[in-house]
């Protein structure tokens, strides 16, 4: 766990604040690189794997049965949004003003949401959304022992593990259970769609990343409008043009989800006229995908620039204006086809910012900050939780959180997506979190019996020179394990026999009779008519 090493003192000079600490970050070295602006390539793509229809696992059946039509849009405010200048605590304006004499919002420049809290007056869009009852604010969201590194803290928000370094994200874990045979039998539609934030863990499973990811909006626009990643109509002349066409066209065929995305996009239109700003463009496309019934349940979009160490007034303003206008346009757009109650939008940010300003008219990394929720399903506007104490700070001079971000996730999973508590707990790494009153309630009477859904656990283990597959049999059954090379061709059978309940270890190199080269392979377990696949390294 890393904590920021050099903590600025309360009364340091004005100059140093603009110089940032070199981040000591512990991001994850993963054995797969995910979707680098390359849409839909989760893990290894098996070109010629035998696509046998797989009977879903009991857990995935239970998950699928409890699914509803609700959609979540996550807006990542990248850099650490200054919450105090977003949701201004006018209940104690004097203290607020003293903390940040230069960068505070003037009282006359605020729109009151209620007697205690206000937003800057350039966020007229949100004023309207609040007025329509489609907005809630959760105060003081964070986690214990705030980490002040962008990378580490963003990883914590994505992985939900603030103690150890966890390489998977909350949604990655959900999809891993829903699609145990993903490498061989992926679903027809992308489980998630992500614009920007390449490298964010949120959709990362142990083996695959479950998002159709693009580096920027233009890339997604290209796929959505043309059904292809690379332009095959505008090309140079002569033989180079022929070869470039051929390469682009073939590359396009490898992108798994372009045509369903294109179909959804072309089946809909925007009934709002969005601005030309960054977030607006992203939400405009997302709106069309939702309205066009793509079927994807989770979207993530990214707005960068919140790391306002200097010049905060102007920099944050531009971003919050974009946020405000876009949300208004987005929900008007969804309302036009009656979908505004099916879509819940949530802002996340790796941290808030210091209560007091620095010497460069900005703020430094902080801790607790508000999470904003939007959607007609919220059952009216309101504030949730208590605002952090403005003058009692943690050891880094930061606001102490009054809500844990994982409580919000838990509530969303339970009350918005109607997942069984045992499933929610497992997604959140077997911790139980509080469900907050966000105005959303699961309407579904779940008659899915999760008690029968014992998870079949299998994992590769690397010990010195040996590569093992460890499986945990919940009951006696015949188990067939095959090994495939990364092109999807069967290399051999590792096991085909009856195994009794308990742990079993299969030594891959010992079991396979062919000589195995160093590299990536895939193993696929078949038991009880269900398939489970994972990638594995032979070293």
């Amino acid at each position, binding site marked *: 766990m890393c904590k920021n090493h050099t903590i600025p003192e309360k009364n340091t000079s004005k100059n140093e604040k*603009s*110089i*940032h600490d*070199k*981040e000591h*970050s512990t*991001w994850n*070295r993963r*054995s*797969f*690189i995910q979707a*680098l*602006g*390359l849409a839909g*390539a989760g893990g290894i793509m098996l*070109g*010629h794997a035998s696509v046998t229809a797989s009977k879903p696992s009991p857990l995935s059946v239970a998950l699928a049965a409890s699914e509803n039509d609700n959609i979540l849009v996550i807006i990542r405010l*990248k*850099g650490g949004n200054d919450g105090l200048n977003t949701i201004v605590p006018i209940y104690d304006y004097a203290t607020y003003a003293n903390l940040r004499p230069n960068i505070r919002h003037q009282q006359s420049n605020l729109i009151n949401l209620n007697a205690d809290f206000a937003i800057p007056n350039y966020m007229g869009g949100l004023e309207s959304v609040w007025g329509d009852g489609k907005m809630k604010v959760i105060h003081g969201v964070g986690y214990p022992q705030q980490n002040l590194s*962008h*990378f580490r803290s*963003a990883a914590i928000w994505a992985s939900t593990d603030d103690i150890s370094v966890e390489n998977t994200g909350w949604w990655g874990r959900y999809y891993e259970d829903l699609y145990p045979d993903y490498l061989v039998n992926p679903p027809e539609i992308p489980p998630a769609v992500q614009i*920007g934030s*390449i*490298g*964010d863990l949120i959709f990362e499973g142990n083996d695959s990343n479950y998002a159709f990811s693009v*580096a*920027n909006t*233009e*890339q997604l626009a290209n796929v959505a409008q043309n059904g292809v990643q*690379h*332009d095959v109509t*505008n*090309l140079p002349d*002569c*033989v*180079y043009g*022929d*070869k*470039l066409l*051929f*390469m*682009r066209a*073939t*590359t396009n065929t*490898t992108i798994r989800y372009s045509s369903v995305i294109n179909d959804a996009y072309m089946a809909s239109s925007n009934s709002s006229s969005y601005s030309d700003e960054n977030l607006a463009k992203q939400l405009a496309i997302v709106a069309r995908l939702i309205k066009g019934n793509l079927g994807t349940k989770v979207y993530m979009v990214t707005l960068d*620039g919140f*790391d*306002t160490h*200097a010049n905060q007034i102007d920099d944050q303003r531009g971003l919050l204006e974009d946020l405000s206008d876009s949300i208004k346009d987005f929900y008007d757009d969804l309302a036009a086809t009656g979908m505004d109650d099916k879509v819940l939008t949530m802002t996340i940010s790796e941290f808030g910012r210091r209560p007091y300003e620095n010497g460069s008219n900005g703020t430094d990394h902080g801790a607790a900050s508000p999470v904003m929720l939007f959607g007609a399903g919220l059952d009216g506007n309101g504030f949730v939780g208590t605002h952090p104490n403005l003058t009692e700070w943690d050891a880094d001079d930061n606001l102490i959180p009054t809500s844990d971000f994982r409580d919000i996730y838990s509530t969303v999973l339970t009350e918005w997506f109607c997942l069984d508590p045992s499933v929610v707990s497992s997604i959140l790494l077997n911790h139980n979190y509080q469900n907050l009153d966000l105005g959303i309630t699961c309407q579904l009477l779940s008659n899915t019996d999760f008690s029968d859904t014992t998870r079949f656990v299998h994992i590769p283990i690397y010990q010195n020179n040996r590569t093992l597959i460890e499986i945990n049999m919940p009951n006696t059954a015949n188990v067939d394990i095959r090994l495939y*090379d*990364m*092109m*999807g*061709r069967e290399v051999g059978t590792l096991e085909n026999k009856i195994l009794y309940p308990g742990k079993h270890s299969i030594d891959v190199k010992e079991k396979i009779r062919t*000589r195995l*080269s*160093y*590299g*990536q392979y895939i193993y696929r377990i078949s038991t009880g008519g269900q398939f489970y696949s994972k990638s594995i390294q032979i070293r």
Partner: protein
Amino acid sequence: METIANPTCNSSTLALYEPSSQNPWDTRKINHVYRRLGFGASQDDVDAALSLTPGQFINSLVDTAHNMQPTPAPYWGYYSNDDFSDYETQNFEFFDQWRLQTTKDLLEENLRGRLAFFWMNHFVTRFGIYFHAPYAFQYYHIMQVYALGNFKEFTRAVGINPAMLIFLNGYENTNYSPNENYARELFELFTLGEGNGYTQNDITETARALTGYNEWDEENGAIYFDPSSFDDGVKTIFGQTGNWGYDDVVDILFQEKGSEIAYYISEKLYKFFVSPATDNIGQTIIQELAQTLINNNFEMVPMLKKLFKSQHFFDEHSVGVVIKSPFDVVLNFLKETDFYYNDTILNALVYYTGLVGQEIYDPVDVAGWQRDETWINASTLTGRWALIDEFLDYLDQNGHDSIFVDLAKALTNNSKDPNFITKTLVDHFMCKELYTLSDYDIATDIFKWEVPQNYYDQGIWDLDSNSAPYQVMILLKHIARMPEFQLK
């Protein structure tokens, strides 16, 4: 699979390329040479070439290749089965060793390696058939010896090489039981081209003349001529009648069909080294190359020099039109990054090139790899990406990630501008500037990764930042996925 749609737009001739201000001698041209004639250039290679004229540079590459000694024989190079202590195990071991050695040769030998490899796909044999590691060595040996030699003598030598005698059944071709396989492929694939100037009768008669190489003293030992299985009757080949033997076949073939052979070979070399499109240059460029070959009695060096020094070769329409083979992908990347590698990595990369369609010593069939667009389908393409991913991950996970930053620093003079770094790295691997400029923006967005934008704007970020190695790595992985990366 269909190949070219358009005939070549290359109207340049085989006249000598002389640099000018509109058409300068620069890094792009040098990389073009190295990617075609070798397996890519290191920074040092490029710098050295910049100080030479194109003519001097090509001469040096060709002469060095021509004069290069073949790789020394391994101790088992001429073993027969009796010489092994444990045939099953050792045969595999030796073959693996030799594949690795060949790969290293390709990395180091520039044009000699490139041509040896070309000929291995012309005079095809398949290890899967002859299955004896010493034969693989002996076959490779003559590929090296004749790579820039005399094509006629090359043809003569390869037909009695044991790997070939086994692969195309020369070993079983006897006077009492003739086998036409080699005779057919000699004409159809090795010298004339399908249906081009030979009849079925020529094949039958030639097969008879090639009999006799049916004897060995030990299993998988040297194969030699034994008159008792030689058909010593009269044969008529290409209208010439006589009691022909092996050498006569070669002599008559080249004497009667010299022009056809020269054209066939010149066209093959042109397609390999210059462009798959030959539709409208047969009468000019190919014919001139063929004539050069004939005028030099099938010595290849003069023809190769003429081609490689020409305006036609350096014409921009020659650039970027060849689809990389799997070996090109791997070896060019190694050379152009100068990244660390070891035997484990090379062995793994050789395994992967096999998976994506190019197994060294084992082309798909006797016609060899057809190259060009046949290299690529959705499956082999994603395999190529996975191959690069594997290599980079290995480096990353084994403590070599600082070399990613070293590359970026060297190429950009330690720039802090993510746009510039990205463009420079992309352009380093591509033979032309990207046609769609917004593709640079996508690559830059990827390179920027999780680092907040203000770090770049305020100059806080640089290539010494903790995240920089990872950023360079993911950019490299993205570069390998760009369509242009597969073109050279």
